[in-house]
């Protein structure tokens, strides 16, 4: 591990520990409303101020980290695995399989999945726990978010089919399955890592946007996405700069993931 990767590990560990220890670190519960101090700037009592209904922002970031840091990478992993199977296999097999898979992928890219998500919300009872609601949201995001990478993986796997080492392995009598897992799949890692890395913040932001459909995290449970939505109400960048803390935190965590992944790429190389 180089210095950057060690730093990345440390950052992720600190963030994870902070979220686990939120009960002790947070000055108040994430739902506690200080109605006399709404939209307050940072102070000794509220390190990052309070939101529009007086909830401590620092506490909400800590508790929100649990939701976003656990579920977003899980959903990203799901979408990456699905992309690997669908895109990777299709590209490897080639021919009619690739064509069909890519047609399905393109269809998937074009359909208004908003309405499937609305239907999913309708099928869920109204009285579900906020955690269940957000888990379902991330699951749906993972199931729908594989299409971009699948296309690129198909092209990559298609290119690999005609490379020397694959031809040699095939000539040597290696089975298709073994060929795919041992020779093709490792070479798909750059795209898989890219997909995983991109998906984390995209899913965190999407979860917040899905609040308009009744999905996503339900009040009063916070998530990074819901905290980032506060930025939408700012009419100038300079006012209330403390509202940027969730964005900075997300960037730092995403950077840390990328540094760790780039380390994995070097090891693979």
């Amino acid at each position, binding site marked *: 591990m180089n210095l950057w990767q060690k730093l990345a590990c440390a950052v992720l560990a600190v963030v994870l520990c902070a979220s686990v220890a939120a009960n002790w670190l947070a000055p108040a519960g994430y739902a506690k409303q200080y109605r006399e101090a709404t939209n307050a700037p940072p102070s000794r009592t509220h390190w990052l101020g309070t939101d529009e209904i007086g909830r401590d922002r620092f506490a909400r970031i800590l508790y929100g980290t649990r939701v976003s840091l656990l579920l977003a990478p899980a959903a990203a992993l799901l979408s990456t695995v699905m992309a690997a199977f669908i895109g990777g296999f299709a590209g490897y097999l080639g021919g009619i399989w690739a064509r069909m898979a890519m047609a399905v992928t393109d*269809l998937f890219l074009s359909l208004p999945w908003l309405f499937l998500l*609305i239907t999913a919300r309708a099928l869920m009872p109204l009285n579900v726990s906020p955690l269940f609601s957000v888990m379902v949201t991330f699951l749906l995001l993972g199931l729908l978010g594989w299409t971009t990478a699948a296309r690129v993986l*198909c092209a990559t796997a298609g290119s690999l089919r005609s490379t020397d080492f694959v031809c040699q392995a095939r000539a040597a009598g290696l089975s298709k399955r073994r060929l795919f897992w041992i020779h093709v799949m490792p*070479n798909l890692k750059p795209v898989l890592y890219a997909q995983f*890395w991109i998906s984390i913040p995209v899913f965190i932001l999407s979860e917040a946007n899905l609040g308009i459909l009744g999905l996503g995290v339900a009040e009063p449970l916070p998530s990074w996405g819901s905290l980032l939505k506060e930025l939408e109400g*700012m009419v100038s960048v300079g006012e209330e700069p403390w509202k940027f803390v969730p964005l900075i935190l997300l960037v730092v965590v995403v950077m840390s993931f990328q540094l760790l992944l780039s380390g994995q*790429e070097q090891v693979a190389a």
Partner: protein
Amino acid sequence: MLRAKIAGHALVLVATVVLGGFLSATLVRLAPGFDADEQQLDPHLNTESVQALRAARQLDHNVWRFYFSYMNRAAHGDLGTSLALGQPVRTLLRDRAPLTLRLLSVGLALAWMAALSLALTAAWLRRSTYDVLTTLVSGTFLCIPAAVLALLSVLWNVTGSLAIALIVFPHVYRYARNLLAKSYTLPHIITARARGLGEGRVLFWHVVPGVAPQLLAVAGVSVSMAVGAAIPVEALCGLAGVGQLAWQAALARDLPLLVNITILVTLVTLLANCGADVIGHMVRGQDS
């Protein structure tokens, strides 16, 4: 062989577009709120009027009948009438498509220019500090909500294309950077460098052509990303394009408009991806 490939793609394209339209009609029809009209809540409306409003919505209940009649009319150039706006869909799309096309073209061009410049430079230099900096820049834009980027473009009085570019650029950069970096581990690249070939020559003559099919695939999907980004950007910036229309149609469950927009988006996506595939095959010079 190439002609056969193009013909095959064309057939798949038509079938996919038709299927896409039907599936979108089904999704919209089955989603809750299809029969709901905000006007029903007007306390001035009496019972007969409210029931008449509901009855008007019942006409499109049967998806098969709706889609069959839609295809029949579309074959004669009639794309139906928007329920929400009361105007012919054809007129709406014709009036708004140029703005969206302009937004997307400029946005995609900017995104690709930025992403490729940074990715190629990262591949050339192969310095971890540069990598960290570019990852920081692209990661930051990836983490900013699309609505905020759209609002910033209004705040700074810049074109909405810039917001689209900033939304698409991090995706393209990451894929491009990873693909280029991976190429440097290939045996023929190592050999070329070991033999003293200049870095520029290695990059542009050996690395880039090697990843061209994958980059073209990324180009294809970046069109879909840009189309998706156009919706919040146009809606927030008040730009009268197809993206804004799509958002209004979704909110109003406007079936005729949604089906047409889906078909349009499917067509654009397929053309982009098929084009990328075909060019990719030409570059690779082999059958898929």
